């Protein structure tokens, strides 16, 4: 029987076996729900395995704590596969019948790389499903983040 350890989950994630990693991360998080690195990886796993509702739930729990948890991802030191996944997903987007899921996945994955691109995808998702409270929450949180950042940047500029 496999040891349901975080370390084994990390291995599966590292070799891009997202389905196996997902199962282990879910198990570990059931007893350690505050584990941020695992939650970040679980979002990615859910996006790949097309469990978008679960992905968004974990994603929103992270950005509700602090969007920088995801925004400040160091793709090299955290072995983040998002760039490659985004490339594949954007290629499929035009063909994908479930556009909402694809847009949400891209919105989540882009936040690991670029907040502006992320929010663009969430805007598109919001257009398709304007009454979805989870999407509305996400958009508002990210818009707020961008506004604060723009304000900080402009203050910095003025002080220089």
């Amino acid at each position: 029987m496999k040891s349901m350890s975080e370390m084994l989950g990390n291995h599966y994630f590292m070799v891009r076996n997202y389905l196996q990693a997902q199962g282990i991360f879910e198990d570990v998080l059931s007893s350690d729900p505050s584990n941020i690195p695992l939650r970040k990886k679980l979002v990615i796993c859910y996006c790949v395995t097309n469990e978008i509702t679960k992905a968004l739930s974990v994603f929103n729990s992270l950005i509700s704590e602090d969007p920088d948890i995801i925004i400040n991802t160091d793709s090299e030191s955290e072995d983040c596969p998002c760039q490659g996944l985004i490339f594949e997903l954007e290629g499929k987007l035009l063909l994908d019948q479930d556009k909402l899921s694809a847009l949400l996945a891209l919105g989540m994955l882009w936040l690991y790389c670029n907040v502006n691109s992320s929010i663009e995808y969430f805007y598109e998702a919001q257009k398709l499903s304007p009454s979805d409270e989870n999407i509305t929450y996400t958009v508002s949180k990210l818009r707020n983040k961008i506004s604060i950042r723009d304000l900080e940047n402009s203050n910095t500029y003025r002080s220089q």
Partner: protein
Amino acid sequence: MNLIENNTFSCLPHGGDILDSMGEGLFTVNKDFKINFFNKAAEQITGLSRDEVIGKYCKNVFRSDFCFNECPIARVLESGQNIYDLESRIQCKDGKMVNIRLNAAILKNSNNEPSGGVISFRDISRLKKVNESLKPNTHFFGVVGSSKTMQEIYKLIEDVAHADAPVFIQGETGTGKEMIANAIQITSRRKDKKYVKVNCTIFPSQMLASELFGHVRGAFTDAIKDRIGRFEYADQGTLFLDEIAEMHLHMQVLLLRILQEGSFERLGESLTRKVNVRIIAATNMDIKNAIAEGKFREDLFYRLNVIPIKVPPLRERIEDIPILSSHFILKFSRLYKKEIKMISREASDLLINYPYPGNVRELENIIEYAFIRTKENSVLEVDMLPSFIYEQPQKSKEIAHMEIDLNSVKFIELLEKYNWNKTKVARVLGINRTTIWRKLKALGIDSR
């Protein structure tokens, strides 16, 4: 291993120094699989400096195929069993791939949860060349030993060289079963065909089935493409199944079928395939006990045991110890490019009288340890041997029943009997060698 998380070896006094003095490469990873320790030997084998690898993912450093398909640390996590002597390849700094043999284990934190992994490895490409160069000096196709029991084994192998019948090799761990298997293969009619080795303890049950019989895409979760198994790969050749008694019972059924009919199916496939493979099996378990306990199928045993070979433990062929010691001295002199003059008589005596629970492999480790510690062109002395060899001397049966007064004439007679070999006398008396030295000094006797 239970070591403090994130503080792996600093809890040991001179921990880093000890590991840097090892001849084997060693590195550790944390639970994210980032390298957090890399010893000197690892630097030498890979050409990579510590600074270049610390903090990096091991898969990005070594770039081995094994990283993705058969990571040894992941295997240990899955099976719960450490891995020994697994052959693999890693990429060095110059881009060359190097053949290595590795051991893998998991590090655990104070809560007994996996917190990292450790791999020790050695470059076997040089080792393979050295072993090849040593073959002319061995007694039988790589096997060393001239004792009567070993001669009988060589004769048996020669007698059955023309046959393709299965061979079942039994012997304690470290007795050289794989060497015997190699000798059987190389003297057989199939010597020019494929020779594949599988250690049945390395793989969890389902993976062993996939490893031996192959699988088709989709057969199970990780089966992302078709894969040929070792039986197919070894078709017309020889397959060595080491630690066969560790095989799960349902696997034994599949193995029995292939022995009886030569047919099998890849996992997830209904197409029956045929192969012609000669099986050599080995175990260190008491197979009769395993059968009695229901752990090993009796019908499989009889299928495999057509040519039985029992390799004796080293303690039952002590006359081979000096030859083996010399063989290993020669091996390490070529491997480490260092010459030593000889083994001292006292050291030889100790080596002969040690019981070797780990058999030939343990002797090799002891010789290697002592060889590394001995200076170039010096004599390998007692002090260079691992302390466990001489720290607990055993009383001989000869005088186990009596205590000798160190002031008595009998003590001097004993010394004369053993040619003033203080080590031997100490062992016989069950006391420390330095006690004898001090006593002789106190008596004003010059024992040189």
